[in-house]
């Protein structure tokens, strides 16, 4: 049973629900700090612990971040929008209800755009709504106790709900990456799935190709990485296909993804789903946002990743792939642009950054913050390379040295005596000497053993201590060998 076989007759239909924590200083409804990670229950107030009489008050900053995000995702802002109470009992939910938006969310009908295998895709958004996060239960099974940490309680979240328009695991992954990129460009969310500040549930159904109705959907939870998203979707499609082949029905249910076992388990069926008893939150007034206020936020939006990617494709003559890599973070795109513009050799800047710079960064987001060589320093190095004063290998060597010593390229080049030998006469005399010194190899080469060309190149560079301009050397060697 394979995905290829499946794809011959069926297709997957996927909708994603993404929860993104907003990086405000304070929580959504409570005056407690949103910068925690400290000891349990240290970042709480009487509001996010649900003490009797404590009332929620909306954090203006969170609303601003949420609206910015919605505008960047081409949504229509709904005003007034309304917060509701969603009820269920759980120890990590101190009030016994979560304040969330229900039938009147603040943003509707947007889209996420991205490139998949060179093709532009646009996936619709149903809605985005604001809500508060719950706390965390910590279970100590061996001691038979459970504890509650409310640091996360009332942290601002936006839930971004896509239309069921995604058709493959790859596409779902590309959508999620594109969405995360927008949030990071806007600096509203850290976008870290492993840390749980960017979470994704997937609604998955399958149907025969050509079928227009949707199949019964299954909601997959606990997906904590991009890799797991793709694996969970593929696994679910095959699980459902298997059921259909056995003439069994797919049950509408919520399943939990187990990354270790590489399978999902049923959490609850539709019948067991809680009745959340939503009703409008009486402690908060409907939220009205004026058109002027919204327009000002729209005008203040930075250049968005997809616009930037397309600009890179056009202005810097990059492929979709290159442009996407270079715009994968705002910092990286800034870095590239600051180098490519003065260097005026876009391919050189693009290739060097993609092969050499990115390889030495652990995390592209955080890696560039305190990174050396910074843009001016790398520009200087690449100028040397562009002018032929350094070979690519030398440039890489200098780059590595710059990273550790944090010294400019010029200093390292002069200290190490690194400079490329471009002088034809020096190179030619070297080539001649090498050929003379290896008559046996010359014979074999002439007899047709072409491979030996590399041997001669190697010997020449050895003589030149690796500083010979490779292109010139190659041309001269070809010429001399022909004449010998």
């Amino acid at each position, binding site marked *: 049973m394979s995905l290829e076989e499946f794809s011959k007759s069926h297709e997957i239909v996927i909708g994603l629900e993404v929860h993104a924590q907003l990086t405000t200083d304070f929580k959504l409804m409570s005056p407690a700090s949103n910068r925690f990670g400290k000891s349990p229950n240290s970042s709480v107030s*009487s509001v996010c*612990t*649900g*003490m*009797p*009489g*404590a*009332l*929620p*008050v*909306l954090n203006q900053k969170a609303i601003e971040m949420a609206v910015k995000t919605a505008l960047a995702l081409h949504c229509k802002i709904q005003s007034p929008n309304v917060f509701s*109470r969603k*009820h269920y*009992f759980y*120890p990590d939910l*101190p*009030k*016994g*209800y979560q304040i969330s938006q229900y039938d009147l969310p603040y943003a509707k009908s947007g889209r996420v755009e991205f490139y998949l295998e060179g093709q532009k895709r646009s996936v619709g958004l149903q809605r985005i709504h604001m809500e508060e996060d719950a706390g965390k239960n910590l279970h100590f099974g061996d001691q038979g106790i*459970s504890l*509650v940490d409310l640091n996360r309680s009332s942290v601002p979240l936006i839930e971004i709900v896509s239309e069921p328009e995604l058709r493959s695991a790859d596409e779902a992954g590309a959508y999620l990456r594109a969405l995360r990129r927008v949030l990071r460009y806007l600096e509203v969310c850290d976008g870290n799935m492993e840390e749980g500040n960017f979470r994704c549930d997937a609604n998955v159904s399958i149907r025969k190709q050509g079928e227009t109705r949707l199949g019964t959907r299954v909601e997959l939870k606990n997906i904590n990485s991009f890799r797991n998203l793709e694996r969970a979707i593929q696994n679910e499609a095959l699980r459902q296909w298997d059921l259909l082949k056995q003439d069994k029905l797919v049950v509408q249910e919520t399943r939990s993804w187990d990354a270790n076992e590489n399978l999902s388990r049923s959490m609850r069926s539709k019948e067991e789903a809680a*009745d959340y*008893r*939503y*009703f409008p939150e*009486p*402690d*908060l*007034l409907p939220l009205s946002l004026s058109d002027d206020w919204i327009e000002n936020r729209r005008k203040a939006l930075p250049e968005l990743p997809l616009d930037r990617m397309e600009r890179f494709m056009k202005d810097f003559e990059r492929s979709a792939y290159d442009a996407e890599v270079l715009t994968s973070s705002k910092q990286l795109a800034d870095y590239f642009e600051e180098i490519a513009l003065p260097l005026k050799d876009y391919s050189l800047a693009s290739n060097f950054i993609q092969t050499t710079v990115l390889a030495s960064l652990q995390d592209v987001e955080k890696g560039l913050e305190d990174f050396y060589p910074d843009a001016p320093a790398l520009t200087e190095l690449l100028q040397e390379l562009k002018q032929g004063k350094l070979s690519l290998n030398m440039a890489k060597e200098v780059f590595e040295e710059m990273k550790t010593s944090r010294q400019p390229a010029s200093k390292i080049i002069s200290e190490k005596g690194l400079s490329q030998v471009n002088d034809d006469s020096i190179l030619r005399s070297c080539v001649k000497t090498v050929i003379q010194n290896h008559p046996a190899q010359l014979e074999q080469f002439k007899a047709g053993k072409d491979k030996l060309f590399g041997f001669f190149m190697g010997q020449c560079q050895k003589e030149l201590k690796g500083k010979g301009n490779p292109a010139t050397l190659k041309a001269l060697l070809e010429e001399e060998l022909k004449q010998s």
Partner: protein
Amino acid sequence: MGRLHQLLRNFKEKKASYREYYSDEMPKIKRRNEELGAYLEIFEELVETQVTELESGKRAGRLAGLPLAIKDIISIQGQRLTAASKILENYRAPRSATVVERLDREGAVFVGRSNCDEFAMGSSNENSAYGPAKNPFDLSRSPGGSSGGSASAVAGELCVGALGTDTGGSIRLPAAFCGITGLKPTYGRVSRSGVIAFASSLDQVGPMADDALDCAEILQVISGADPRDSTAMKVPVEDFVKACEPSPLKDLKIGYSPDYLESESLPEAYKKELQEAKRSFEKLGAKFYPMTLEHLPYSIAAYYIIAPAEASSNLARYDGVRFGHRTKAFESLKEMIVQSRSEGFGDEVKRRIMIGSFALSSGYFDAYYSKAQFVRSLIQKEFLEAFKKVDLLFWPSSPRPPFPLGKEEKDPLSLYLADIFTIPVNLAGLPALSFPIGYDEDSLPIGAQLIGRAFAEAELLRSLAAYERERPFEKRPLACH
């Protein structure tokens, strides 16, 4: 002059020192409380501290030294806060309600936390898990609810003023039953922060005291916007005390419902006193206009959907996880929550949680909650229309005299109906006061209501102050010692 202003004057004229006053009063308060059950706890230590602060001048302000009762649903930092429920028996408030902070800043003394119906749900005070407060005019009768302890404490002279809360009449009904004045402010006039929520869209804190001027003094201090409550509105706070100065009521138009004032179900004495009160307003120059609000009969039905729905939600936090009562033995999380709540809540609270949960559940929401909200909007509209024609409305406060204690518990419906004259006002979010207009044949007080436009508290107080000068209410001897 009400006792609150009398005492303010005495302190000002140094007729008594704070220390002397409290040395005299505290024994009397404690003695009477044995009979009345008005306070669930008298804060002897806190009073001692506050009196010391008053003596040293550290505690001062426009309410300096005034003994107040605080309904046990309003937080006072460090003090127990039970909502008259077993579920919060040993709970202490982590910080003071905004209204308490404001009273504290003006030098008030908090004598104790006053009795009430559990989570403010009830009209007789008999839903208190700690036993009902009693009516100072007849100890066998209810002081009304839910702010019964506050009313009992004011009427029984265990304080000079009190805070109550009013969700469906919980300030006005006890005020009427105990022959005092109680004001339910406009929804949004007073902060609810730190006040245990019953029905968030209806709850409002308000003053209870002897007369208009005494209520005005307290209202002045507690009113105004609050960064801790988004529903406390940024509306200018007028000078309510000044509003009580003598002024004619010429040009004042008052609407009344003949159905209400002359209803057959109203006791004769009520009809008579309501007519007398009406005549006094007329003497002052006010003109009365008959006015029937036809949707009002639906208000009880709407209220008993909306209030329980919100209550079922507000009371979800009492789960035994972080504070409050937790059952002793349990096998599972679910059992812990269910048992803790089953043991901690009283019958009326459970009844309303069940009604509310049902009304909000999927499949019933539209038929109940949405329909009730629709009725509520009709009632709001009807009041708005009425206030285009008149300035105030004049209604009874209660259709019947104070309930005999221990007789009606088993019929919640008949108790619900006692709120017929008060509930529409909460649904519309309007300000209203209940004031004493006389006594029935059993010497039990009778109350009437004035209802005003949103944020027209000054107009209400001005009119009542004028009425009081025209027709003073004579306080008859109390039944307590």
